[in-house]
């Protein structure tokens, strides 16, 4: 258990020192800053579309840390050393996903407060948006580790990562945007179910990808 915590802590430290923590946050807030310039200062329009834009920004921000999640560890032999010590690939993937929840999901959730203020989202919507993102971000953390494991070492990994991410996240986006409507109840339940399924499956998918990548 102590070793598992040490591995999670290492993920957070690497994100913090390697800049991987700030990149998604800066991207997310940049979208929130730029969007009002596109639509103009139409309060009603911003209130109607702003939440959806933040959802898209959060999904795309998932791609940003992908290159530093698995490949450097594989090249440095860290993954070999863990396998040698009897760690299952699923457990390594789980530690990395939990690390991403701390180093990616939480900062993005906090940045949502700032982002929604930049866009001028009504306060009533902020709570719904935060709840929806809180449900979806663990799933996005799982997806980022899975995609990183699948594409590690391939040329054009980022482009391939984008191609993999978009179809899987469409249900999250549909239900997530649905929660921003007048009656968010059903959409929130479907979002929770989809996010839970993706979060629960991702350690196994990522673990299998890690195993397949070991040569």
């Amino acid at each position, binding site marked *: 258990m102590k*070793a598992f915590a040490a*591995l999670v802590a*290492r993920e957070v430290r690497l994100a913090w020192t390697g800049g991987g923590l700030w990149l998604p946050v800066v991207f997310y807030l940049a979208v929130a800053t730029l969007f009002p310039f596109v639509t103009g200062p139409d309060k009603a329009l911003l209130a109607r579309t702003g939440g959806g834009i933040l959802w898209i920004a959060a999904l795309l921000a998932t791609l940003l840390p992908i290159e530093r999640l698995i490949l450097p560890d594989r090249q*440095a032999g860290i993954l070999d*050393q863990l396998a040698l010590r009897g760690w299952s690939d699923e457990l390594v993937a789980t530690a990395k996903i939990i690390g991403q929840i701390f180093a990616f999901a939480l900062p993005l959730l906090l940045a949502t407060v700032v982002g929604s203020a930049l866009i001028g989202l009504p306060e009533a919507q902020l709570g719904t948006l935060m709840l929806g993102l809180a449900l979806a971000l663990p799933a996005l953390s799982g997806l980022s580790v899975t995609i990183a494991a699948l594409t590690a070492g391939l040329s054009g990994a980022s482009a391939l990562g984008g191609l993999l991410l978009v179809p899987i996240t469409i249900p999250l986006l549909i239900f997530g945007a649905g929660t921003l409507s007048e009656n968010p109840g059903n959409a929130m339940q479907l979002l929770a179910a989809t996010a839970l399924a993706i979060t629960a499956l991702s350690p196994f998918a990522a673990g299998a990808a890690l195993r397949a990548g070991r040569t």
Partner: protein
Amino acid sequence: MSSRQASLPSISVDNVAVIRGNRLVLRGLTVAARSGDIIWVRGANGCGKSTLLRLIAGLLHATAGSIKTEGRIALADENLALDANLTVAKALMFWADMDGASGDARSAALADMDLQALAQVPVRFLSTGQRKRASIARVLASKADIWLLDEPYNGLDSASCVRLDQAITTHAANGGIVLVAAHQPPSINVAHSLILDRPEADV
């Protein structure tokens, strides 16, 4: 992750063949090692020395044959497996935590490889030989029964070679097993010298 094995360490590689990337790397290989053995693995480039070590480490699967090991394994190959931004001491501490090893084991390993002066230097600033010493210190600190060392003498100065020789003989004298893959002939007493031939490509 597992606790230290009570039984004596051993390696038994029985009639193993390995195919990597459509190429037959090892064939009909049998190696047996008991507690206290030092095995020197030699052979031309690409003859499968590293493959054999990865196989014993359980990182590769044999295409045919069986591999059994008893005891905890530590591997030092060309990958350093230490975080480049951490100091040497902290990077080694990470693996000591993983192994449940004490801080003393790490300090002793640092001393054995003459790394105390470099303990507070970030790993990314180390030279080739110093990196090699750090990776050997990682093996020493792990308190594993079986050491798999891939080209451990590469880049080491003569004083460090002597230190490594000493560490290997001490580990074997304490009942451990050491497999060394190297190009140069052994500078210490070894149990077996294993010469790997390149298998003929008939696949």
